[in-house]
C-alpha cells in the first residue's frame, strides 16, 4: 500500500496535468468550458440575479420586444423573458445533470461488475444490455409519462434508464483491459476483496472515458427533456424549462418571434458548449490519441 500509493498518485497527476494542458490549447473546448461555468453560476444564483420575480406578470404590458427594462422582452402575460429563461435554465440543467448522474451511477457500477467478474456473469449481464438496446425506448418513455402522469422524478428515472446502457458498455470494455494489468494482480495478491478492488483500483482508472461520455450524455439528456417538454409530456407549468418555453414560443412566433428565438438560443448555445467541451475532453483524455506517448 505504502509503495503503490505514491506511484499511483504521480502517474495520475501527470495524466490529468497532461490532459488539462491539451484541453487548454483547444480553444473551442475552453470557450465551451467558460460559457458553461457562467451558465451554471447564473443558474445557481438565479433567485439573486434574476431582474424580476418568477411569478411577476404585467398583463397591461403584454408581449413587448426587447427594451431597456426587459432585455429579452416580455411574453404574452407580460412576464420578463430573461427571468423566465434563467429559471427555465435551472430546470433544464437540473434534469440534464441529475438524469446523467443516474445513468452514470447505474452504468459505471453495472459495467465495472460485468467487466471485472467476466465469464458467464458478464455474458448474461451484457446480453441483458443488448436486449434493452433493441427496445424502442423513446416510445416507452412517452408511454410511461402518458400513463403515470408527468412528474419530474419519473422524468429523471426514465431518461436515466435509457442512457446508462452505453455507459455500461464503455466501462465494461475499459474494465476488461484494466483487469489484466499488473496493479490489479498486485491488489489481488495482497488479498483485497473484489469489491474493494473494483472501487479503489478499477473504477478510478476508467475515469477518462467516463468523464468524456458523461459530458456528451448531458446534452443528449437535455435534448430529450426539451423534446418531451415540447410535446407537453415533460416539465409541467408553473415550472418551466427551455423546451417548454420553445413550445410556447412556437405558438406565437409569427407576431412575437423573440419568444421563440431567445429560449432557442439559450438551449442551442448550451448544447453547443457541452458538445465542444466533450469533444475537447475526448481529444485530451482519449487513450487512443495518447497512445503515441507509450501506453502499452
Amino acid at each position, binding site marked *: 500500500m505504502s509503495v503503490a500509493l505514491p506511484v499511483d498518485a504521480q502517474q495520475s497527476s501527470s495524466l490529468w496535468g497532461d490532459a488539462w494542458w491539451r484541453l487548454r490549447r483547444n480553444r473551442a473546448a475552453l470557450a465551451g468550458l467558460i460559457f458553461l461555468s457562467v451558465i451554471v453560476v447564473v443558474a445557481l444564483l438565479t433567485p439573486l440575479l434574476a431582474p424580476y420575480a418568477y411569478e411577476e406578470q404585467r398583463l397591461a404590458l403584454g408581449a413587448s420586444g426587447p427594451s431597456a427594462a426587459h432585455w429579452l422582452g416580455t411574453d404574452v402575460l407580460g412576464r420578463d423573458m430573461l427571468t423566465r429563461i434563467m429559471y427555465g435554465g435551472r430546470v433544464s440543467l437540473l434534469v440534464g445533470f441529475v438524469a446523467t448522474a443516474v445513468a452514470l451511477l447505474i452504468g459505471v457500477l453495472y459495467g465495472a461488475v460485468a467487466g471485472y467478474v467476466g465469464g458467464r456473469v458478464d455474458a448474461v449481464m451484457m446480453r441483458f444490455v443488448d436486449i434493452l438496446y433493441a427496445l424502442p425506448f*423513446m416510445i*416507452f418513455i412517452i408511454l410511461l409519462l*402518458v400513463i403515470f402522469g408527468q412528474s419530474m422524478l419519473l422524468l429523471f428515472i426514465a431518461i436515466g434508464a435509457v442512457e446508462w446502457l452505453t455507459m455500461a458498455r464503455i466501462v465494461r470494455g475499459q474494465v476488461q483491459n484494466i483487469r489484466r494489468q499488473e496493479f490489479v494482480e498486485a491488489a489481488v495478491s495482497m488479498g483485497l476483496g473484489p469489491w474493494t478492488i473494483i472501487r479503489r483500483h478499477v473504477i478510478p482508472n476508467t475515469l477518462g472515458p467516463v468523464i468524456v461520455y458523461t459530458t456528451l450524455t448531458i446534452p443528449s439528456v437535455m435534448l430529450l427533456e426539451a423534446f418531451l417538454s*415540447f410535446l407537453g409530456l415533460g416539465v409541467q407549468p408553473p415550472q418551466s424549462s427551455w423546451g417548454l418555453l420553445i413550445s410556447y414560443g*412556437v405558438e406565437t412566433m409569427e407576431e412575437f418571434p423573440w419568444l421563440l428565438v431567445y429560449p432557442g438560443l439559450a438551449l442551442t448555445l448550451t448544447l453547443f458548449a457541452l*458538445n465542444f467541451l466533450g469533444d475537447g475532453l475526448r481529444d485530451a483524455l482519449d487513450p487512443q490519441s495518447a497512445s503515441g506517448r507509450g501506453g502499452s
Partner: protein
Amino acid sequence: MRFIASRLLQAIPVLLVVITATFFLVRAAPGGPFSADRAVSPQVIKALNERYQLDQSVWQQYAAYMTDLARGDFGPSYKYPGRSVNEMIFGGLPATAELGLYALLVAVGIGLCAGLLAGLRPNTGQDYVPMTIAMLGICMPAFLLGPLLVLVFGMRLEWLPISGWGDLPGDKVLPSLTLGAAYAAYIARLSRAGLLEVMSQDYIRTARAKGLAEWRIVSRHALRGALMPVIAFLGPAFAGLLAGSFVVETIFQIPGLGRFYVQAAFNRDYTMIMGTTIFFSVAIVLFNLLSDILATWLNPRLRLALRKGSGT
C-alpha cells in the same frame, strides 16, 4: 445466412418483451378509455366493457390480444368507434414513410457530401466550416429548427408553404429538411471520422504508391471504409427519425402516424397506443437488423470471420 438467421431469432424475444411490456403498462394506467369526457351511465360502461372484453381477466385479455396480433389484427380503436387500429395505422403510414424517406435522403445526401468534403482536407477551412455547421445541426433540435424554418421561409419570405403534406407544391421541403438535418449532421461527423481513419491505412498508401489518381483512391478504396460507420448508424437513426416524426408531423400538421400516436397518447386510446407502439417497435427492430446485416456484409473482415464460423 446463419448470421441472419441467428439475428432474426434474437429479435423474437425482444419483440415479445416489447409487446408484453406495452400491454401490461397500458393496463396498469389509471383511468380507462371511457372515463374521461362526460358522465356515462353505469349500464353503458358495462356494455362498452363487455363489447371490448374489458370485463374479462387481464390474462384472458392478454391471450386474446396476442391471438389477434398473431393474425396481424390490432383490434378496434377505443376512441373512434367503428374504426380499427389497422385502418388508422395504414392510413397514417404513407405520409410518415414518405417523410422518413425524404428525411433519410436529406441526411445521407447532405451528410455524406459534407463529411467527405471535410475528411479529404482535414484541419482546413474546408473541414472547419461544414463541421461547425454539423455541430450546430446536432445542437439544434427539430422542434426548434422546424419553427425557425417556418418563420423565415414560410412566414417572412413566403417562399414555401408552412403546413400540410402533398396539398401545395413544395410543402414537403421544410418538413423533410427539418427531420433530416440532425441526421445529416451526425452522418457528416461519422463519415469524416471514417474517411480519416481509412486514409491512414496501409492499403491506401499502396494505392498511392501505384500512382492512382486521388479521386480513384477515394471512390474505389476509401469510400467503402468511410461508409461503414454511417451504415451502422442507420439503425439507430431510424428510431430517431420515428421519434422526430412525432414533432415534425405536429409542427407541420402532417396526417401521419407520429401525429396519431401523440393524439392517441393524450386520448388514452389503449388499443391505438398499443398498436402503434408495437408497430414502431417491430419497425425499429427490423431496421436495426437490416443495418446490422448490411454492415456485416460490407465489412470484409467481419464477413471472413463469419465464413470461418468464429463470429456470432
